Structures are given as structure tokens and as C-alpha cells.
């Protein structure tokens, strides 16, 4: 039973008249649009399958011995310096940017509240995740893409090992577990950077700077930043690994996989950030009905 007959392609309307050309132009436009939508739906479905398979293997079987620690080292330890550096500079830049406005109102000591609130709620998690997407997400896509191109992923399957279990689960787990720690580092270093610039260089009264921070920045703000980071970490690992697994052949394919891993992760981070910000704002209002956040 041969079931491999290819679908018949659409044939353009013959003739050189205006109606034929218009018909062909509209048909081509619809076909192109259909192809784009089709590709997007297929990619989304493929990504959903990949995510389900990762979660299934995560729950069903422990990671292979010796795969989790190297991933934690790559993702956590090696990302620490760059994340810390980003935190310090963002804290200082926030101080520089907000000083002029606050000084006009004579409210320089309120800067602590704004800088620290912005850091723990938004900038710490988002920038730590962005750095991780650039450093780790692209590296995952490039490494797994090279493994795909050189048939190493096929070799894993051929030896009875599941590639998702062996390659994706440890990376996913390491990202998920370590991104809150990296976010905390970015937050802390940002707070230090902001305080150093505000108190040390701009001579803002330290007591009121910290007192205002304590008053306005609560545990919920810290929690909301860390909660968001979990989703960012999961997205970075899944997108990076998926791009690597579906990498096109050749050096160009690996390069494209690495680039698209970063771009897609960044878009996913921004999209998730918006969704989670709306959700957490609702939760905040639900818990403290009269409360209003400072920023």
C-alpha cells in the first residue's frame, strides 16, 4: 500500500490578462500567508511537544549521573560574574537617571525606594534573564545544534539513551534552580551599586535612603521578581535546547540556531514579564486591597 503521494501543488491561472494576474497575485499572497501561519503553528506545536517531553522525563526519571553538576557549573557559576556586573551598573545607572528629577522635588532620599523597587521587581529578574539568554541560551543552542549536525544526538538514541532525558533535563533543571540565585545576585549587586552611587557619590543621606527603601520595598516585591525568574529560566532552557535540537545542517544552521535562541528567549522574557506583571498585580490587590505600589 503506497501512501506517499505528494499533495498536488496549486497551479497559477494561465493567461496574461489583468484578471489572471490579479488572481495569481492574490492567490500567491494567500499561499505565502498560509505558509507563514502553518510554519508558526507547526513550530509552536513542536515546542509544546518538546516541553511536554522534557517535563515528562523530569518527573519520570532522575537525570543521569554526572550530567546535572556540569550544567549547574556552566549555567550558574560561570554566569555569576556577568550577572553581578550587570546588577552593579544598572543600580548605578538608575541612580544617575533618577537623581535630577528627585532633586528638583527635593526628594532625593526617596531614590532608595524607587531604585530598589525597580531592581527587585523588574530590572533584576529581566536583566539577569537577558544575560542568561545571551550567555547560556545561545550556548545551549550552539552546543546541541553541533551535536545534532555531527549526529551525536542520533548516536545517543542509537545507544538506547533518550536525548531529551540526557541533554535537556539537566540543562532545564539547572536553569530553573539557579536563575532565582542569579536574580538575587543581580538584585543585591544592583542595590549595592545604587547605594554606592547615591550615598557615596551624590551624598544622599544614608539613613533616609535606607529607611525609605525599607518602607516601600516589601517581601512581596522580592518574591514577585524571583517568581518571574523561574518562568524566564524555564523559557531560556527550553528555547535554547529546542533550537539546538531542530538545528539546520552546517555551520550556518548552528549560527542561526544560536541567534534565534537568544532572540526568541528575549521575546519570551518580555512577553512573560508582561503577563506575570499583570497576574502579580492582581494577586497584590487581592492580598492588600487598599495597597498601591510605588512604581
Amino acid at each position: 500500500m503506497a501512501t506517499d503521494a505528494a499533495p498536488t501543488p496549486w497551479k497559477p491561472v494561465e493567461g496574461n490578462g489583468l484578471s489572471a494576474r490579479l488572481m495569481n497575485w492574490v492567490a500567491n499572497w494567500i499561499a505565502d500567508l498560509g505558509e507563514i501561519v502553518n510554519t508558526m503553528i507547526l513550530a509552536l506545536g513542536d515546542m509544546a511537544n518538546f516541553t511536554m517531553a522534557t517535563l515528562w522525563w523530569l518527573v519520570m526519571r532522575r537525570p543521569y549521573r554526572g550530567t546535572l553538576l556540569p550544567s549547574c557549573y556552566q549555567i550558574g557559576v560561570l554566569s555569576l560574574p556577568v550577572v553581578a556586573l550587570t546588577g552593579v551598573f544598572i543600580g548605578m545607572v538608575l541612580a544617575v537617571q533618577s537623581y535630577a528629577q528627585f532633586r528638583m522635588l527635593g526628594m532625593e532620599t526617596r531614590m532608595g525606594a524607587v531604585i530598589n523597587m525597580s531592581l527587585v521587581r523588574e530590572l533584576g529578574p529581566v536583566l539577569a534573564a537577558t544575560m542568561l539568554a545571551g550567555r547560556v541560551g545561545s550556548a545551549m543552542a550552539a552546543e546541541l545544534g553541533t551535536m545534532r549536525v555531527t549526529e551525536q544526538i542520533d548516536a545517543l538514541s542509537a545507544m538506547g539513551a533518550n536525548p531529551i532525558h540526557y541533554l535537556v533535563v539537566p540543562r532545564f533543571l539547572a536553569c530553573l534552580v539557579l536563575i532565582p540565585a542569579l536574580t538575587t545576585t543581580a538584585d543585591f549587586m544592583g542595590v549595592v551599586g545604587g547605594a554606592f552611587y547615591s550615598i557615596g557619590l551624590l551624598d544622599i543621606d544614608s539613613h533616609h535612603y535606607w529607611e525609605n527603601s525599607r518602607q516601600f520595598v516589601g517581601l512581596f516585591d522580592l518574591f514577585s521578581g524571583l517568581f518571574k525568574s523561574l518562568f524566564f529560566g524555564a523559557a531560556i532552557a527550553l528555547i535554547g535546547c529546542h533550537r539546538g535540537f531542530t538545528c539546520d545542517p552546517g555551520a550556518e544552521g548552528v549560527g542561526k540556531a544560536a541567534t534565534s535562541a537568544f532572540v526568541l528567549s528575549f521575546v519570551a522574557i518580555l512577553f512573560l514579564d508582561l503577563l506575570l506583571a499583570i497576574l502579580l498585580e492582581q494577586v497584590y490587590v487581592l492580598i492588600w486591597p487598599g495597597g498601591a505600589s510605588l512604581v
Partner: protein
Amino acid sequence: MSLYSAPPNDSSKPLIRLDDLHVRFGQQRVLRGINLDVPRGQTLAVIGESGCGKTVLLKTIIGLVRPTSGTVYFDGRDLASLKQDDLATTRTRFGFVFQQAALFDSLTIGQNVAFPLRRHTDYTEDEIREIVVMRLAEVGLPASVVQKKPAELSGGMRKRVGLARALAMEPEVVLYDEPTTGLDPIMSDVINELILNTRRHHPVAGIVVTHDMRTAQKVADRVVMLYPLARLRDDEPQMLYDGPPSEIEQAPDPRVSQFVRGEARERLMELRTQNGS
């Protein structure tokens, strides 16, 4: 040191059976109506020009590529009907030697060869080390390579490590994907001798995908030739030859002798037409 008790050995049944196998990637048809039986202990060479579907055939046999239609039977069981764990266990009965060896870059040579043993056996580390050294010795590599990374070895040595890794679990069938491609003639002959040696020491079936006629003539009991579907009419079979290597030069189909002798013939004209000269 033997890893498994011998499986139920019904020699009347083929170890591998392909039944009306079709494989298509999107619009591109690669394999059409392939029927093939490989008995235990036989070494089959699959020859054909680049792009005729040899490697896809090999990957379909081990379940890395899903057939569009048709069935692959291994030891009487349909591979598509196996659950994930059963398929993984079944794959340990195969050894696969990849074209570029496909050694894991991040692991040492020793860890590469030990990989399937660590995943699928209860051997102690000492026993695994002993097997690794033994398998490497079988392919002519000293124990000193154990600590090296794949990038430190030459192409020929990597291929030999790939063979040692494929043999680590004492498989019942070894699949070779272009084992001599990219090697010098001497190293090619070394690999051919190792394939023969493997069969002498282990009672394995082998499927060797190659476009090197010397390899096919030297190692195979039987040769099958595939032809690219793009060059065939719909009513023509894709398998142009199925017989002993000694008779392939006398095959009635001129396309078979053209490939065996390596003659360009009408292809040159096609190239000139394409280039407009």
C-alpha cells in the same frame, strides 16, 4: 565477557525484515517500496550514489527515522509498535558506526566507549574499564587513548573508536554508515579488515552502507544497490541489484555496471546542459 544470554535464535526467520518501506520528508521522497530480509550472521552492503537514501535506510532500520509507511521488523517484532523503553532496550542489540564517528566531544574516549555499558549494565567501574580496554584493543588502539578527547585523534582513529563503542554491548547486528569515507586507502583497508574481524570474533549481522566498491567487494556476502528516486520512473523498483558481490559486474541493468565501474557517461552531458555550455 558476555553481556547478554543469547536471544531466542530462530535461524529460519530473518533478523531484520523491511516490508514495503516508504520514507518521505515533506515533498521529497527518499525510499519507495523497499522489501529486504537480512538473516543472522549475514553482512549486507548497501551501495548507491549520494542521495539515493542509503543512510536514511540505515536510520530507519534502527528507528531513528520513522517510515512514512511500511514496517521494520527486528527479530520478528515491529519496531513502531514498541514502547519507548522497549525500543531503547532493542537498540542496545544494535551497534551503529556513524559516518563521522559521532563521538561525544565532551567525553573522553574511555567514557565514549563505556557510555552504553554505564547506561544499560550493572558492571562495576573496574569491569567497565576492562571491557573498554578490550574493545579498544580489538580495533587496534592502545589503552593510552582512554584519557584523550575525540578532538585529539585522527579521523581513522575516531572511526575505530566509533566501532569499539558500537561493539561495546556485543550487539547482534552492526550498522556501518560509510565506514571508509574520508579515509586514506590504507586506513580504509584497515577498517575493512576490522569489519571482517568483527564478524570472525562475534556472530553478528552487518549492514554496510557505502559507495566504496572495494569495501562492498571485500566485506559483504550480499550487495543491494539503491538508485535515487528522482532518476527513476514511478513503475521502476528502487532496488536495482540484490545478489552476491562476485556477480554485480555482470548485472543486466547497465546502471549497476555504470556505478560499479564508476563511469560518468550521460551525467557529464546533464552537467553541461545544466551549465548551459
